[in-house]
């Protein structure tokens, strides 16, 4: 803002920026560094930069625990949840922005309401229903329960996106002989791509990081996803912090990679209120 900054003011600014950077990043740095230390040195060495790096903790984690299996489960659940969310949310959001009908407000209102639901409130009824349908402790059940988080977010976000998209484009395509469906697939979808990417990213984030639904829905070790698997390791693992930090780092890695590659979508989504609780 101010142009002619005095030296003390500029110094103050740098110090503040440094404080923010350290405050935000140090715990993450410490997680990664701890995962890369020699496990035996973890008990004694608190140097900020380790002299020797070791992949011992990762080797133990991947060879001696169910972590790889939980990783695979998490990938399956998150990918399925993202795909289903994208298909349904784009249809619903398009229909409610392009048609004046009753029931439209019910959908949008219910979605916004649902988007504010805390997961645990909806977990009790869903688990009870699934227990009766034989879907408890299945990945399918977990995927469906994740849709109660991701779908409202997707509809809510794309609703705002389609509202700001002019009708003229589809109308022009339809005048040129396209059907409504053709115009939707060939004109609307490509233009909505940035919005769809944002929805995909945040749906993935919600599903990948979810602890609450997985805790309620999944009972057997074989079907656990990463957050629940890692949390249950703490009790049974005799607090092997190196392995636990390695597991934490590997959960966070895909999210950081996605953020590094697509940070503008994250910021856009956060600005539009795509929050994960």
């Amino acid at each position, binding site marked *: 803002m101010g142009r002619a900054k005095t030296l003390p003011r500029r110094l103050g600014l740098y110090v503040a*920026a440094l404080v923010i950077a350290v405050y935000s990043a140090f715990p993450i740095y410490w997680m990664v560094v701890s995962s890369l230390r020699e496990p035996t040195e973890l008990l004694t060495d608190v140097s900020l930069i380790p002299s020797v790096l070791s992949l011992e903790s990762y080797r133990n984690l991947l060879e001696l625990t169910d972590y790889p299996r939980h990783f695979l489960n998490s990938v399956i659940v998150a990918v399925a949840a993202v795909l289903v969310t994208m298909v349904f949310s784009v249809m*619903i959001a398009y229909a409610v922005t392009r048609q004046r009908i009753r029931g439209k407000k019910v959908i949008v209102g219910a979605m916004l309401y649902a988007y504010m639901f*805390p997961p*645990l409130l909806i977990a009790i009824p869903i688990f009870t229903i699934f227990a009766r349908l034989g879907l408890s402790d299945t990945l399918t059940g977990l995927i469906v329960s994740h849709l109660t988080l991701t779908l409202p977010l997707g509809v809510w976000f794309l609703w705002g996106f389609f509202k700001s998209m002019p009708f003229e484009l589809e109308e022009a395509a339809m005048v040129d002989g396209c059907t409504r469906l053709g115009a*939707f697939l060939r004109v609307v979808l490509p233009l909505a791509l940035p919005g769809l990417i944002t929805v995909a990213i945040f749906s993935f984030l919600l599903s990948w990081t979810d602890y*609450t639904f997985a805790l309620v829905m999944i009972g057997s070790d074989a079907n656990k996803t990463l957050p629940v698997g890692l949390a249950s390791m703490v009790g049974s693992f005799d607090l092997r912090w190196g392995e636990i930090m390695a597991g934490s780092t590997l959960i*966070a890695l895909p999210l950081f990679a996605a953020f590094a590659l697509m940070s503008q979508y994250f910021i856009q989504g956060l600005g539009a209120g795509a929050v994960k609780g």
Partner: protein
Amino acid sequence: MSSKTTIYGFLFVGLAVTLALIVAPAVYAVSLSFYQMDSFIGAPKWAGLANYAAVLQAPEFWRALVNGAIYALGSIVFQVVLGIAFALVLNETFPGRNLVRGLSILPYLLPTVVVILTFKWMVDGGIGIVTKAVEAMGLPPINWFESPGAAMASTILVSVWMWTPFVTTCFLAALQTVPQSLYEAARVDGTTAVQRFFHITLPMLKPILTVVVLLRAIWMFNKFDVIWLLTRGGPVGATENLAVLSYRRAFNLFDIGGGAAIATISFALLSVAVLVYFRVFPLEDD
């Protein structure tokens, strides 16, 4: 296929999915609260308002309500204050600004479980970095979870760290919409930076502040995973809020009707906040 068929097809799908995933479970949760069930597959027995009577008479319910309010209020105040402060700093120009902006978002991306485990590792009684740092400074060791007050403070601390980035990002975006001419004019009038913040920035940010506080209030009041992973609601219920209590009732004590009754009460409280939200930000009729 006619234009109408496509749109109505989409709409039908939308209604069906909304009903199945959102409306039905919500209605079912409320109806469960009127039944007595001690297993998830057993036959429910009609109990009328007995679950509510039992829940409302239990002192742990009122304790959970108060704990939830303290936790929500404490964490929101610090999130918002820190979030605004960070946004003001990150809105200035300095070398490496984009890097610091990126770093400031990272806590938000982490899964809750990772944040909790890393925090527990850092404050580990024997070998945690924070423990060692405190030791090196010659201070007495900090008990992070042993006393009720400390456990609540730790829970708030972790929550503030996790959700400050959301506030920062919202405010940073909003700050860029404040017209620079307002600041120029105020500067010509000889105002101080503090005056400009309270008389220009804050009033301009009021709408976004309202959204952020309402949304944060709704979520923090019903937060489950942070508390459950960090303290299990302990010690002796000192950090147990309604969500944790409801989980314990339904899934540990298998009092499903009681758990559903607590969830329904939370729904009702949540609905008040959501109604306020809709009142402040109506769905535009376009």
